[in-house]
């Protein structure tokens, strides 16, 4: 290979390494600190290698008041958000992908435009409404708000997932004895699974990481990010690292678990 051919490759790899480090180094330090003794968290300069591993910091964090319940609430809220956003979003996405109905384009635009209203502006009227409905300060209120945030995304992503699956496959199933519903269940859904999984990851993470609406809509029953934020200023450094790790870990875990569905299914890349 000539220098001319090698140089761009080296540049590309360097850029990739820098980007990866940019993401990985903070994750590494957060994880390291979360699993160190409390003293070593305060140490400067930082150790680069895990020297004194301990669950002391994590235990301290988990034993702090309100953390375990808020963790449970976060899981429930993210799960509910996932159910609502995909339960409504996937059928909507399917309709947008398959049927040419009057106003389909304006509908698509309207879905996107809902994201134009910042959650800051939506939160106050939402809080008032939820107070009236009696679902303020509950997981349902937060899940509804999160579902509203995630729904446009769920609709658009699932719509493109379904458009990527040839209509002829569905029609073939229908000529072979399926109704439209069973053609969707037997042929479309298995093929859409990787894409739907991707949409599910993002919806889950949108909810898991969302802090603003959660903070406004809850007071005592906070989700984890809202809880951590609320007590952040008054907490010691080990608590912050452990909290950071707890917010980070599920997102990473979910991505790693569902990743294989994203790239490789039935021995080929699913478009």
């Amino acid at each position, binding site marked *: 290979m000539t220098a001319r051919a090698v140089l761009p490759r080296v540049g590309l790899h360097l850029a990739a390494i820098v980007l990866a480090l940019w993401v990985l180094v903070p994750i590494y330090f957060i994880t390291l600190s979360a699993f160190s003794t409390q003293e070593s968290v305060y140490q400067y300069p930082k150790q680069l290698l895990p020297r004194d591993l301990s669950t002391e910091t994590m235990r301290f964090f988990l034993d702090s008041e309100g953390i375990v319940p808020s963790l449970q609430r976060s899981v429930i809220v993210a799960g509910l958000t996932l159910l609502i956003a995909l339960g409504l979003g996937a059928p909507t996405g399917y309709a947008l992908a398959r049927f040419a109905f009057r106003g389909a384009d304006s509908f698509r635009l309207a879905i996107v435009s809902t994201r134009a209203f910042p959650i800051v502006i939506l939160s106050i009227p939402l809080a008032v409404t939820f107070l009236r409905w009696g679902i303020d300060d509950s997981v349902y209120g937060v899940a509804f708000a999160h579902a509203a945030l995630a729904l446009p995304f769920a609709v658009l992503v699932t719509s493109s997932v379904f458009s990527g699956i*040839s209509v*002829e*496959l569905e*029609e*073939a*199933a*229908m*000529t*072979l*004895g*399926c*109704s439209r519903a*069973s053609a969707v269940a037997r*042929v479309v859904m*298995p*093929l859409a699974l990787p894409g739907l999984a991707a949409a599910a990851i993002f919806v889950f993470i949108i909810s898991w990481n969302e802090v603003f609406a959660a903070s406004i809509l809850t007071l005592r029953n906070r989700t984890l990010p809202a809880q951590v934020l609320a007590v952040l200023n008054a907490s010691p450094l080990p608590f912050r690292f452990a909290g950071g790790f707890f917010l980070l870990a599920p997102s990473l875990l979910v991505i790693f678990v569902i990743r294989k569905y994203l790239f490789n*299914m*039935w*021995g*080929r890349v699913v478009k």
Partner: protein
Amino acid sequence: MAEVGFQNVTKIFGKVAAVDDVTLDVRDGEFVVLLGPSGCGKTTLLRCLAGLERVDAGRIEIGGRDATDLPPRKRRIAMVFQSYAVFPHMRVYDNVAFGLKMQKESKATIEERVGSAASLLHIEDFLDRYPAQLSGGQRQRVAVARAIATRADVLLMDEPLSNLDALLRMEMRAELKSLLQKLEATTIYVTHDQVEALSMGDRIAVMNAGRIVQVDTPLAVYDRPLDTFVGGFIGTPPMNFVHATVALDDGRPVARLGGGTVPLREDARAHVGREVVLGIRAESIEVETQPADGAVAATVVVVEPLGSHNLLTVRAGDNLVKVSVRPDLFPAPESELWLRIAPDRIRWMDSDGGGALGEEAEDLARSREATLALAQDASTALS
């Protein structure tokens, strides 16, 4: 097995009639090809029959039953799609078994039918593979096996060979034809490839702009096209169309065109003085190298050697004419030739390119009457 009937079927997309008042009857076990250029409505007509499109007017019958409003699964049809539409998440076996499983056949029946369909299409060795591991030709076989495994009454094929390369297409064409002869299934086959249509069909329905222009056997459609569209669409090269005037020469009817006169059949006498279009196949023209009586002078423009024959493009008066000659005849460009055309090999039509004249007009009437009679038979049988 079943007969199929379209009665005044119309399908409108937006403001365009994709299928415009089509009436066609297909006999039990018959192989009918819907042939036409892209956008002529042939695929739409097939999809209406499959139940994948709802017709806007008219009636569709399958096996004597009114199927106009039936969903696809209740029509007892099977379809092979242009893209094959083989399910990528199922092994070949499950693809072929899909229709049988939907019909809730017993496990033994499914195994037996999948086995026989697979052996007919020579895909026994791939049954455990996923479609992604197959070549295009093999996937095509899977699609056909899947369609025939259900033993549907009517087999629909939408350009099944168009995604194969030329050599494979020719191979599959013969194989598919012999397979369908064995199955004796009523088959409706859509293609834009006139060679496929001529070589496979019992009858060809030529479509243009949403309408059926002519329905007849491949030979009749080839030799006696009803208008210039059919003549121009079918055959390589397409039929020659030469403008001429009918006249009397020594009391015998002839066509005058630049370069000379061509004798016509006796019944052309009725059209003396009229402007006509003569339809002549390239292989119906004989070539003389010396001036001869009743032959038209022409100048050679291009010679294309094609192995089995040579294709000449010659100029006779204002008309460019394609002539097929034996492979050892290599006239020099710009040299003179004389064309002789047998009167009964000439098709004459209205000069506006429309319908056929004389005996040809009778063909037209015959074809329409036959269609009508079939339609009436079908409706009396029903009522």
